[in-house]
């Protein structure tokens, strides 16, 4: 994952609360391979009618090339499906601004370079009102924790460790492998003192699957 520290793009409002992950990507699309691109699935059942025709006045259909969504409370609540983030990222979205986010969604977002920026609810409401059905230029500065939409600046909230991760684009597995010795020591100790925490051996299983 490539890191980033500034973004310049277009923001639009998605004036809805509780945009859950089932709406971000309906379950029926989740068997697709990522290489197909998930952008076309984003908010599918809100963007298209039952016959598959585009609903013209849905915000994402009105504005091609939006890269920042401003949305209501509890964005990304629901399931742990990372595919919800893939759909956003593959549709060209770099940041979502909302009062709060589903916990699992937010960490999935950061793992894919998508910024979940928190602003106080009254500021989000004001932003949504001022954007209305238009798009506006947006500038995001991760290091400063600031964003600018039109001529208005906002300071957004983001966990420090997430900020670092978005900027560096680090891979957690590489980071963790730096601590391999400590992990092995912990595992050995736990196996010594807490043997019951390993699954009881099953007769039908080959010994190779037993704990070391």
């Amino acid at each position, binding site marked *: 994952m490539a890191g980033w520290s500034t973004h310049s793009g277009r923001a639009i409002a998605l004036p*809805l*609360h*509780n945009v*859950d992950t*089932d*709406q971000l990507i*309906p*379950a*029926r699309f*989740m*068997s697709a391979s*990522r290489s197909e691109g998930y952008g076309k699935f984003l908010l599918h*059942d809100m963007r298209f009618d*039952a016959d598959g025709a585009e609903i013209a006045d849905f915000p994402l259909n009105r504005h091609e090339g939006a890269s920042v969504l401003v949305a*209501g*409370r*509890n964005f990304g*609540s*629901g*399931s*742990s*499906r*990372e*595919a919800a*983030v893939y759909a956003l990222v593959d549709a060209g979205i770099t940041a979502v601004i909302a009062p*709060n986010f*589903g*916990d*699992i969604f937010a*960490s*999935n977002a950061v*793992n*894919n370079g998508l910024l979940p920026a928190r602003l106080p*609810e009254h500021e989000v409401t004001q932003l949504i009102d001022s954007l209305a059905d238009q798009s506006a230029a947006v500038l995001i500065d991760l290091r400063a924790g600031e964003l600018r939409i039109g001529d208005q600046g906002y300071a957004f909230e983001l*966990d*420090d*460790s997430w900020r*670092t991760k978005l900027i560096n684009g680090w891979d*957690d*597995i590489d*980071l*963790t*492998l730096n*601590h391999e010795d*400590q*992990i092995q020591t*912990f*595992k050995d100790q*736990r196996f010594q003192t*807490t*043997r*019951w*925490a*390993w*699954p*009881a051996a099953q007769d039908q*299983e080959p010994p*190779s*699957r037993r*704990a070391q």
Partner: protein
Amino acid sequence: MTHPRTLLDKLWSAHEILRREDGTSILWVDRHLVHEGSHHAFGKLAARGAKVTAPELTFAVVDHYAPTRNRDQIADPQISHMIDTLRKNAAQHGLRLFDLMDPAQGIVHVIGPEQGLTLPGLLINCGDSHTSTHGAFGAMAFGIGATEVAHVLATQTIWQKKPQSMRITVEGSLGPGVSAKDIALNWIARLGTGGAQGCAIEYAGNAVRDLSMEGRMTLCNLSIEGGARLGMVAPDEVTFAYLKGRPYAPKGDDWEAALADWANLRSDDGAKFDREVTLHGDDIAPTVTWGTSPEQALPVTENIPDPATLDPGKADAARAALDYMGLPIGRPLDGIQVDQVFVGSCTNGRIEDLRAAAAVMAGRKAKVPGMVSPGSAQVKAQAEQEGLDRIFTEAGLDWVAAGCSMCVGMNGDLVAPGKRCASSTNRNFRGRQGPGARTHLMSPAMVAAAAVTGTITDVRPLLHGRSV
């Protein structure tokens, strides 16, 4: 004297390998459960040329895409492909796979406990938000995304920041026909779907202690619907009795050692929680959802609310929900006609849930079609031994095989557009059970009441003179 600690404090420190300066910790993962949806994570592992580091702690289950009928000849090639991919990944990495025809197959959050893979004191991860279910045993269990699943596969650890602690105490006792599902819908309606965001919930109080393991699992399962990271109940004799003798549970000396350790898995007297909420079990009525979010729930005796009377921040969402659900303001919930019913899911697909539904249905006919999908093949076998399957089929419902089924519809079990379903599941989101589907969440007993009357209705009068 040491500082009194919460159950969360104890579990966290038992799994913390190290803590970075920014407060993020690496935690040891005792059990990792994967399913067909984990294909992205296996793909990431393959892309790095990595292998599963602890196959003995990793278990694979076919559930999300499991057909509930005609398993030996799956018609949909996409579904076969998803299941075959899991088979291939499990074989390649040497994982125990609970495959379609395995007598222990079932929904991951039903079979984990059933097999004794879920134990008090463990950290359990799965790429599924309802992993919170396993917290019913006093485990720290939470759902993770695909990148994190790949991380656990590769390292058997997970990076996390310690959540805040929250205690929900349910005093008193539940009335007849009122269940763990009703407790959950009540607190979520009160606090909202984001109400417990960033928190680890510990459920406590008499009404929680009195719940069976099945009820505790339902309660912990729904923690995520209130935004919580995880939910837990401190283990006790009910927990130990449930686990003893389960296939993967500790045996002999290990069992004794485990019991000694588990006795300490409770919040110390005087331990401080970041948040405390108290409910009274006696005040809780059978509850149903009327909208498209689990927080849009009310006692079945109430009327559909007027959005104008709600908190202004919730009014627009309520209007949109009523529009989607096709319901008028002020209409009593009792009497709303349903088109079909569903009993099943990781929330309410266990033996006790089927017994509760059967107690209502026995000797009665369903007025609408419906499906009963047990949470696991073992639950199915047990129910058949008890004759519950015949109660359902004689009433006119379909009795099918175990899986996630109509809760999420990935296996093709869908509610048709515009149809209204009384459902024992966990999410009434738009389109959750199929495009345009209208879902009303409720307990299995309430679903059974909806089946026999063809409407949403209070189950309590239907229980008169029956043992439940």
